[in-house]
């Protein structure tokens, strides 16, 4: 199980956190099943958002493309 925490705080929201959620929703069902999504209100890393944690590993300045790549690597 891959734990994906995405910051939904206002700062990250401004920088496109919603687009990251869409990445999770667009995954094929068999991959989506392996992911546990957690919405977080702040990682205290504002200014480098959007911020994501994947199994505890921090990903700053996340973009949909970057997140997708990291997810694919972790799901392999």
């Amino acid at each position, binding site marked *: 199980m891959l734990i994906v925490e995405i910051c*939904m705080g*206002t700062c990250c*929201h*401004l*920088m*496109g*956190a*919603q687009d990251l959620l869409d990445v999770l929703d667009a995954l094929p069902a068999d991959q989506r099943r392996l992911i546990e999504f957690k919405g977080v209100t*702040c990682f205290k890393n504002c200014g480098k958002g959007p911020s994501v944690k994947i199994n505890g590993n921090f990903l700053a300045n996340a973009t949909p493309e970057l997140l997708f790549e990291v997810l694919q690597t972790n799901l392999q």
Partner: protein
Amino acid sequence: MPEINEISKIRRKVLTELAQMTFEGRLHSDVENILHTVVTEEGPRYRCCVHKERAVLQDRVKSALSQPMDISMTEAAAAALAGVVSDSPIIQVLPVACDQCPLDRFIVTDACRNCLAHSCIASCPKKAISVVANRSFIDKTKCVECGLCKRSCPYGAIIEISRPCERACELGAIAADKARKAVIDYSLCVHCGACKMACPFGAISDRSMIVQVIQQIKAGRRVYALLAPAFIGQFGIQVRPGQVLASLKKVGFHDTLEVSVGADAVAVEEAREFIERNREPKGQVMTTSCCPAFVGMVEKHLPTMKDNISSLVSPMVAAAMDVKKNDPEGIVVFIGPCIAKKSEAQRYPGIVDFVLTFEELATLIVGAGVNVTEMDAGSFASAGSKDGNIFARAGGVLQAVQNVLSQLAPDVELQAERCEGLGNCKKCLQEIEAGKRNTNLFEGMACTGGCVGGPGVLTDSRITTKLVENFAGASLEKSAVANPKSEELIKLGLHRPHEQHKDSPAD
């Protein structure tokens, strides 16, 4: 709202930093730091070099401060802090940022086969086409961009390219000058923001009054936030309306009021005007008046139909009048999805003091160090009715007025129609004027999806539309007619004053 792109990110970073510096009282001394925090030496790089990028950024900062481009950033910061708002247009092309799109309108592609017929050469009235390197070649010094060659080519090998800003403007208000820089014709522009959203270089910007608003808050004035009904879901799908209100309180707004209350009053009064206009059997078409870009389009592009616009002020103005009646010293800040509202507000000095977009509000909140998602939701019920709240989405105004009509005059003959997009609205109204359509009530919305699709939103309009619908359905007040606030506002006199109803000096 499409995916958040780099242009949005840069704009939001600039606004957030300006807001933060203003709250912390260091804007005047530190404003130039933005040149190093937003554009870093490491990149990413979008222009030729870091210097150009910083020159563009300076323009962005001055626009964000509502200051002219020909003063220094420090001077601009001082002026904004002093509350000065330049009389430059609401939307402008940032001089350095416009990349002078080097587009030749007609281009011969690889599909050219250098055929024997050479219909392109034959079609060109200016003899601008010859064969070079086994392919047709258009001499740009002779080409007058008539497009005959494109139409003549049997292979479709000549393509037409247009500038994104020009293509986005359905009113033909933006074009390249001789130096290929985009220039806005303000006699045609209605500040809808379509060109701003379309420009891939982020070279078109609306000016912001975020610093001036923060200064009012810091000065201890009673600053009222008037929230447009499209605010639902703007700060995240999970965010509760009560959290937005709590955030506004925390950053220092004195009180927050919903514009949906003004919308209720407008719906009722607009329905009454419709009944009045249709007393005669052959009534005349009446259009809604709440979308300022739509109203501007009729005034500037279909002046003969000016009197068909309902005489009502917009819900923004109605709600603002209510605030000023109760607190004449209060400062009114309208917060919505719209850029054109900034222009509309200029027509109502002393009533609507400032206009911010949702995007600007979010940067103000972040700049104040507040996180909406960490606020208590509390209990919240809309003061507006279902009718007023659905103004936020396309078709909502029409539906609200129809609801009122069904209660006040169920027998009135109604031929309702609506359009989204200024080009569509214009075309439809022209057909109505020509008698080709049997419409007597028309809703015009400049943005696709209505207000939720405006240029100042933070969330995809399809999602917001659903959230608006749910929120409106949960309103305790079931209709605009039943909302006791409606009559109270109508007593303020919600008809547009004609003497004030001239173009703003910026136009």
